Structure formats: structure tokens, C-alpha cells
């Protein structure tokens, strides 16, 4: 309860224009299962917050609520000044251009080549671009992840790490202000995991994005996080830096830092 109050106090004192994501009293349940209960959260411009929690603690549900894929039962989700649950489809679509989402399973379209995958976010009806512009954007995005040579390959021909990087390139193609990473390193070997984590940091610096990273891979969390929010039993348990939390004696926290 104390932590929650401290966050609210914090928000009052800081400049609200820098606040990109602000979640208040978020509730979401699936039937009898109350996944999120009275969750509060804030993300400022340029910040990179890791949401840490056990599997099934509602981390993915949280990010899906932020991007509007799930509707919360109660509470507000302010993203770039707009409350997501109130938006209609078209308004939501315009917010989503500014919010990138890297899916846990990459979600590359199996039936399309890498190029078509990257072009897909550009086919919004209100984005008008000629072929050369599209091509240069695709090449730039691929350049960011260092995979220009895969442009005409199918996703099934790529390795797990390459797919993750292509997925990141697809997320980056519209140069979003906020990127949501849903377990970006899950299922990757430690070396690739480190590569991806470094890539996330590079992207962060290059485009000055704000990030919410969901993870339980401490290697990744260590590299990426400015701040860590612990999600326990559907609510924000504690919010602090990696170093501070590492010192914690709380069993719920220290179990992650072994």
C-alpha cells in the first residue's frame, strides 16, 4: 500500500508531459481467475521498465491491455494522454502506430516473406507511401537488426534468434515512441539472449523510445532495466532499480535474483 502511495505522490511532483503510460487501478479477470487487481503503473519518456513476475502472474495480460488487445474490467490506461478502453477502433489504430509490440512468439506471418512481414504494418489505409519509401523503410529496419540478406526468405527458414530480430525490425518499422516487449528472450540460448537484450538497449538509445519489458530472464533484465516493477498476485508489489532489489531480503523478490 505504501508503494502505491509513493508512486502517486511521485506522479504529482513530476512533469506530466513526460508521462507516456499511466495505469490506475487496473482490474482484469478471466472468469473466477482475478489476474490483475488494483494495478498501478507509470512510464516516463526514455525510461525502460521491466515488469518482473512469475509465469501466470498476469504480465502478458497487462501489456495486452496497454495495446488494446484485451479490455480491462476496470481502471484507466492512459497511453500518450489517451485512455485506451475509451477509444474506438480507428483512434486505437492511430495510437498503435506509436506503440510497438514485440510478441513472445514473434508472430511473424508464416505465409509471407520477411519483406512482406515488414511491409505489413505499413498497409494501414491512412498511410500513403510509394514503393521506394516502403523499400527504404524496410531496409532501414532490417539494417537496425543486421539481417538485410534475409529479405526474401520465409520465416520458417530462419533461426529462433533471427526470427526474434526480424520481429523486432517489424516492430521498429513505424518508429514507435513506446515499445512493449513480451518476454523477448524466452526460448533463446544465453548468447543470443544477450544479443537481443543489447539490441533492445541500442534501439532505445537510437530512437529515444520508452520501453516496457516483460521478462523473468534476469540476464536480460540486468541489461535492459532502468527500473523494475514486481508483479505479485496481480498487483504491483514493489518498484525499484535492479541494484536495490538485488539487496532485498524479501523472499518474493530474492527468489528472482538467485
Amino acid at each position, binding site marked *: 500500500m505504501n508503494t502505491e502511495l509513493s508512486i502517486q505522490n511521485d506522479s504529482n511532483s513530476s512533469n506530466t508531459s513526460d508521462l507516456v503510460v499511466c495505469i490506475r487501478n487496473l482490474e482484469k479477470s478471466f472468469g473466477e481467475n482475478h489476474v490483475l487487481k488494483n494495478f498501478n503503473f507509470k512510464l516516463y519518456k526514455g525510461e525502460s521498465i521491466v515488469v518482473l513476475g512469475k509465469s501466470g502472474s498476469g504480465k502478458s495480460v497487462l501489456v495486452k491491455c496497454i495495446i488494446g488487445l484485451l479490455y480491462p474490467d476496470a481502471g484507466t490506461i492512459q497511453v500518450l494522454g489517451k485512455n485506451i478502453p475509451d477509444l474506438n477502433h480507428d483512434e486505437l489504430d492511430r495510437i*498503435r502506430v506509436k506503440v510497438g509490440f514485440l510478441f513472445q512468439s514473434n508472430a511473424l506471418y508464416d505465409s509471407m516473406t520477411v519483406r512482406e512481414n515488414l511491409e505489413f504494418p505499413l498497409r494501414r489505409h491512412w498511410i500513403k507511401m510509394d514503393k521506394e519509401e516502403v523499400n527504404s523503410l524496410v531496409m532501414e529496419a532490417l539494417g537496425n537488426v543486421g539481417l538485410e540478406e534475409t529479405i526474401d526468405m520465409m520465416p520458417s527458414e530462419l533461426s529462433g534468434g533471427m526470427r526474434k530480430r526480424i520481429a523486432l525490425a517489424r516492430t521498429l518499422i513505424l518508429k514507435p515512441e513506446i515499445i512493449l516487449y513480451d518476454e523477448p528472450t524466452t526460448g533463446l540460448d544465453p548468447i543470443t539472449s544477450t544479443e537481443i537484450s543489447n539490441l533492445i538497449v541500442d534501439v532505445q538509445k537510437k530512437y529515444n523510445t520508452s520501453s516496457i519489458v516483460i521478462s523473468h530472464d534476469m540476464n536480460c533484465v540486468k541489461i535492459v532495466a532502468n527500473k523494475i516493477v514486481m508483479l505479485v498476485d496481480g498487483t504491483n508489489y514493489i518498484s525499484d532499480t535492479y541494484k536495490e532489489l538485488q539487496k532485498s531480503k524479501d523472499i518474493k523478490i530474492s527468489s528472482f535474483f538467485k
Partner: protein
Amino acid sequence: MASEKFQNFIDETGDIARFTGRFFKELFKPRFEFNEFFRQCFFIGYKSFPLVAITAFIMGLVITIQSRPTLVEFGAESWLPRMVSVSLIREIAPVITALICAGKIGSGIGAELGSMKVTEQIDAMEVSGTNPFKFLVVTRVITTTLMIPILAVLADAISLYGGFLGANIHGVVSWDLFWNQVFDTLAFGDVVPSIIKTYFFGFAIGIIGCYKGFNTNKGTEGVGIAANSAVVISSLLVFILDLLAVQITDILGLN
């Protein structure tokens, strides 16, 4: 237990009806995905053609050979082309086409959309500003609705050719005589209702495949279940629609 199953059945029926309603709502929203539609026409229509053609040919041949002994008993062997053409055009070719397509296309759509669902590709589309229902469901349902009648017409022709060969295994029916008898026997009341019902078959196959795929859960296992139940339900629906079609044409006096 039984009542629970029954309730599930009712639930699912209602769900499918709502899904169909959503299809029609989305159908008329702007931006029709033409490229995806043409791509699906290739995969659903063209790729199913060889399978449909082989089945139709064999059915035409077999029905003809099997019908002969009975007709010979009546001394009505010369009626073979007439009898075979009526049963092929009215019933066998359209239904066999629909069933083959329910198996091939229904399971294909169910598995494809199912795996897209569990690997979050459908969510990714939503986030990418493309309406996945329009992009995936509307295009596929329209494709099946339009392609299955086309396949059925081709199956009609091929099965009649099979019938011609079948009639010539034990007897002799010249090419001209066969087709003359076929078109002498067939009336609009035979052809038109049988074509019209294939549109409904196609629609049912598309909508069930998409429904099952679109509502997949439980991960990879769910994909298999989606593909399987898509085939089972759409095959069953083909027969139910066929029954309805017969009754309606009967009421309209086209029989």
C-alpha cells in the same frame, strides 16, 4: 453430463451464428483485401482442383458401373446415361466436391488460422492496424463461397466424362449419343438448384473453418482440435444443407 454437452452444443451454435453475423457486418466495411482474396483463390480453388477432379472422375465411373446391372435387369440399359447424369449432377458431384473441400479446405483453414491464433499472429495483425477478421476470415469465406461452385461445375463435367467411360466398359455408347441423352434428360431444375446449393456448401465450409481456427486456444494441441472439428462440423453441415436444399427445391416444385 449429457445436459452439459447439450448446453455446449447450444452455446457453440449460438457462437457460430454470431460469428456469421460478424462476417456479414465486416463484409460491407470498406477496404476489401483483394490481394489476399486472390492468393486464397489460388490455394483454396486451384490447389484443390486435382483432388476434386480425381474424386469426381472416379465417382462418375463407379456410379455408372454400379448402376448398370440393375438397369440391365429391367432391360433399360439404354437409360444408363440418363440415370447416371441425373444422379451425378443433382447430388453426387456437388456433395462429393463439398465433402472433399470440407476435408481439404476446412482443415486447412482451421489449422492455418488456429496456428496463427496460438502464435499471436492474429494479435500482431490487429496491432499492425489490419483488421484480422477482414483480412483472414472475410477473404477466406468469400473464396470458399465462390470457388466451391466453380469446382463443383468442373466436377460435374469430369464425373460425366467418367460416366461416359464407365458406360463404355461393358456396352457401347457413342460420344454423341451419350451427351445427347445427358442433355436431353437434364433440365434447369436439375442443374440450377445443384449449383446454388454449392454456394451454401462453400460458405459453410469457409465459415466453420474460420470459426474453429479463429477461436483456437490451448496452444498447439488446440490447432489439431480446431482442424479436426472444422472438418467434422463442416462435413455434417454439408449434409444438413443438402437435406434443406432438397426440401426447398421440392417445395418450389423444381423436382
